[in-house]
């Protein structure tokens, strides 16, 4: 009696989870299916979970002349990876002295980092400094430099470094190792998991950045993928213009705007959506890194 009741409970639970899974996956199917439907079918029946009037026309159009998408891919890949690597290097170095008791300026430096978390000048003063004094607008550096040091990440790294046994560092010191050697050869290799977590968090936030382009970039070659996508979604005119640039209008009488829109979304966001879940464990770790002290 008891076991059958238990089994019932498990079945109900599974059913609820299957329902939840559908709620989480169906919207993705909607996007994929819309990109593979013919414009005609979309006009008549709207977006559906299963492609109607199956066609790859929209994708063919994109790959016919993918200049803008190609440029945005190049820009996004370049700044995302450069930004991630530089960021991990700079923050990885910066966190080390903060975790060492023999660094005399530990407290003031700690405060300088912490204060950026508490208060910031805001977007406009940053905008003025970046454009008027540093002239970073319309360069790829605007994506990379301002985001290199994230205070919270520095503290996460510091907490990670503190987990390295003191004895190891002492032993290295006795053997005459200098601080750089200890940092690069002992502390960093032992904090690989924390460094990987930070690298991944950095990569995701750089890859998903749309705002920087909208504020600082006028040159279409330097648009980030997400910015391009948001314009495609919001501005029908921009979509048309992109389609015309690719001479798409001449290929067919009717430009498949809606399916093209979704095909572009797939082409621009799809690869990362497939790749990111493989790094899930780092993401989960990053979210649960609790008890981080400044």
């Amino acid at each position, binding site marked *: 009696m008891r076991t059958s009741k238990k089994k019932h409970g498990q079945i109900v*639970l599974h059913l609820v989870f299957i329902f939840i899974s559908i709620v989480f996956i169906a919207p993705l199917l909607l*996007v994929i299916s*819309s990109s593979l439907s013919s414009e005609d079918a979309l006009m008549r029946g709207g977006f559906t979970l299963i492609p109607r009037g199956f066609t790859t026309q929209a994708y063919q159009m994109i790959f016919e002349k993918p200049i803008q998408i190609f440029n945005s891919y190049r820009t996004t890949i370049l700044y995302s990876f450069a930004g991630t690597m530089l960021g991990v290097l700079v923050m990885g*170095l910066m966190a080390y002295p903060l975790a060492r008791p023999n660094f005399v300026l530990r407290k003031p430096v700690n405060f*300088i980092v912490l204060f950026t978390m508490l208060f910031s000048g805001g977007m406009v003063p940053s905008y003025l400094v970046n454009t008027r004094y540093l002239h970073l607008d319309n360069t790829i550096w605007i994506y990379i430099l301002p985001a290199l040091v994230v205070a919270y990440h520095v503290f996460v790294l510091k907490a990670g470094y503190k987990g390295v046994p003191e004895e190891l560092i002492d032993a290295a010191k006795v053997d005459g190792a200098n601080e750089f050697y200890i940092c690069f050869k002992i502390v960093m290799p032992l904090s690989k998991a924390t460094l990987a977590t930070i690298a991944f968090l950095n990569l995701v936030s750089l890859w998903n950045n749309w705002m920087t382009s909208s504020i600082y970039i006028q040159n279409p070659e330097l648009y980030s993928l997400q910015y391009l996508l948001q314009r495609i*979604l919001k501005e029908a005119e921009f979509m048309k213009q992109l389609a015309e640039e690719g001479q798409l209008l001449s290929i067919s009488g009717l430009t498949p705007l809606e399916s093209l829109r979704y095909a572009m979304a797939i082409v621009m966001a799809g690869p990362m959506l497939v790749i990111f879940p493989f790094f899930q464990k780092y*993401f989960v770790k990053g979210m649960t890194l609790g008890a981080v002290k400044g």
Partner: protein
Amino acid sequence: MVVYKTEKKRRINKVTFRENLQMMLMVLPGLILLFVFHYLPMPGIAIAFKKFNPYKGIWGSEWVGLKNFEFFFTSQDAVRTIRNTVLYSVVFLVVGLLANVTLALMLYYLKNRRATKVYNTIVIIPKFMSMVIIAFIVYGLLSPTYGLCNQIISLFGGDGINWYMEAKYWPVILTAVYVWQSVGMGSVLYYSSLMSMDEALIEAARIDGASLRQQIRYVIIPHLVPIMCITTILAIGSLFNGNLDLFYQVPKDQGVLYPTTDIINTYVYRALIGSSLEKSAAVNLFQSFVGMVLVLVSNGVIRKVSPENSMF
């Protein structure tokens, strides 16, 4: 032994000039970047008290005192954005907490470990998506002519709703999107806490004849209360800071929807894009200031309740 320990410590912690010089070099690149991108802009706050003239620059522009703040606080926008920001924060906190704990409980009670892993992976997927992609998905559901929702409504004989023109639906839509995106990751903390709980507790309750509901009510929930408290107190710190990505991208920046979708962050961003720099700066400064006070308060409370979770 004690003497040996302190002596050893003294030797190792001996502050040497060389070591400190090396470590100073290590923090230097980070410090320079923080200085340039966080501290250098700070004096620019002055623009919030000026009438900005692009040709004269920040320092050449004329002072107007608190006029920019006055402009904001006497407008409809102030009430609307502040109310929306705070209300959404509170609703997201409460609904998020409920959803996260419920999901964690369900995962905990699921006996098949492999299935647990699969479901867990599925619900985390949206966390990797950018808000722009989520906006595409929402458009796929809500587009008045093509959207799936209107198809379903008309299937049941109703009239399609022009979602992007009707502000009243958006509190529900935005909350749903928020939960959909964050619940997978949000439940991780609770789930791992449940996994580390002593199972003998529940076993004992069951032997004493506690029903499932009683187990949850008297054993499991009390176990989770500390984490729930900390999450809540931490959320106070960001009460005044909304998610720009969610509120700007998902409603597609439609003016008609502002009554229920405009928050301080979107207002500041729009003013910046629309070149009302001084207006944007003033509102942003107000937000930063209140935000700082809230963070200090929440951190102060945390330090009393649970020092190991305090930020500083």
